[in-house]
């Protein structure tokens, strides 16, 4: 078991889901792949399919349209899977909180289908790449306890 969690910690594959972000958070997520931050040093890569993912990086407010899709996406990932809620929007819908097109918050949306989901929050509008790396490190620490 210890070997498995060690391997999981060393090789987190990220699937990036935009649930109605203003695109600023997404740009910051892509920043992680650039030479300055180079997250592949820790074995993290962006993957194209949720089936391959170990981390679901969610940005955006989770609109009514996006809500069922986000739930479906979470159910499609192979567990164990960590959800990273990135940006003020993903935390508590930020400045859009009372708008007409809001679904539920990202964490509530995901807890609705899996009460035991592992959800990490990265505050900021948008969060700095350093903050996201910090969240990734915390996720890695957390996976040690699995």
């Amino acid at each position, binding site marked *: 078991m210890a*070997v*498995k969690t060690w*391997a*999981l910690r*060393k*090789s987190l594959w990220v699937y990036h889901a935009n649930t109605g972000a203003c695109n600023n958070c997404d740009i910051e997520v892509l920043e992680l792949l*650039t*030479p300055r931050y*180079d997250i*592949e*040093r820790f*074995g993290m890569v962006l*993957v*194209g*399919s949720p*089936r*391959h993912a*170990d981390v679901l990086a969610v940005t955006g407010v989770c609109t009514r349209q996006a809500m069922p899709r986000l739930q479906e996406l979470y159910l*499609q990932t*192979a*567990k*164990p899977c960590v959800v990273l809620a990135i940006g003020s929007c993903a935390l508590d819908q930020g400045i859009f909180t009372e708008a007409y097109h809001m679904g539920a918050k990202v964490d509530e949306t995901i807890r609705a289908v899996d009460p035991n989901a592992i959800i990490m929050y990265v505050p900021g509008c948008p969060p700095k790449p350093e903050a996201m790396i910090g969240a990734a490190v915390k996720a890695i620490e957390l996976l040690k306890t699995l």
Partner: protein
Amino acid sequence: MAMGVLTFLLAAVGTLVLGLLLRWVDRKVTARVQWRVGPPWYQPFVDILKLTGKEKLMPASARGTGFLLAPVVGLAAVSVSTAILWHAVLWPQTAFMGDLIVLIYLLMLPALMTMLGAASSGNPHAAIGASREMKLLLSYELPMVLAILVAIVRTAGTNGTLTFRLGDLMAVQQATAPAVAGISGVLALLVAILCMQAKLGQVPFDMAEAECEIQAGVYVEYSGPSLAMILMTRAMLGALMPLLLVAVFWDGLYTGAWWGYLTFAGKYLLLVVLVTLIRNTNPRLRIDQVMRFFWYRLTPVAVAALILAIVGAAKGITWL
């Protein structure tokens, strides 16, 4: 019998380790090309280890047998071909007749299995990927075989007998000159390198799994151990194809002296890094562009090389 099983296991496991190390070389060189640091050397091993520990999901719309069996058969086919190829390279005189033909067939199986698995996953992205993979296979297989034929013609004995035995192919090349030493040989090797790129599914020929366009295409529904098997198959294929090209075109491994091993390693690594460099300096092509490229450009080149080689062999002109 026991020896055979041992050879098979050693070849398969050795190639797997080599292939995963080469995956790291690929990722590291890519990272350096992009001014990044890149992953540590054990990263591909960790990836495989992690995937074996993950949950195995099967979509409700999938046909279970084909979906789960395809990666296993693909991996098995590649493992058998590793045994044949390494055996032929290390002990040329003990290889069997026509092993080259068996090898060409076996190396086609992973692509067929990819299609089967994708088609039985019931996912529309995978269906698109499978159709592209099929077209890709139809495109590169013909020039590839033609290029290998060039090497066979160039290494025909003085009495004009063609050999389909890898061992003889290498023995003749080591006794006289490598098949690549001549105009037709160079053309054939260039064609074969591009076909290898397509067979390995590397950019610019990775449209079957285009990850930002059709979400990893043929592999979209695979997770956990099945995905690990697919990655292992691809890593082993990545170690095998350069080896095949070195054996067929570039006089293989000369075991008679210490520098034989050195030159072999040099040739092999050159081809491996070439794949990575092509992959890093080209954008992905559309499938119709690829088919046009292979059929209308590379196939005529391969045919021309074959004609040159035949003329050269008939007239005894070695540089043709």
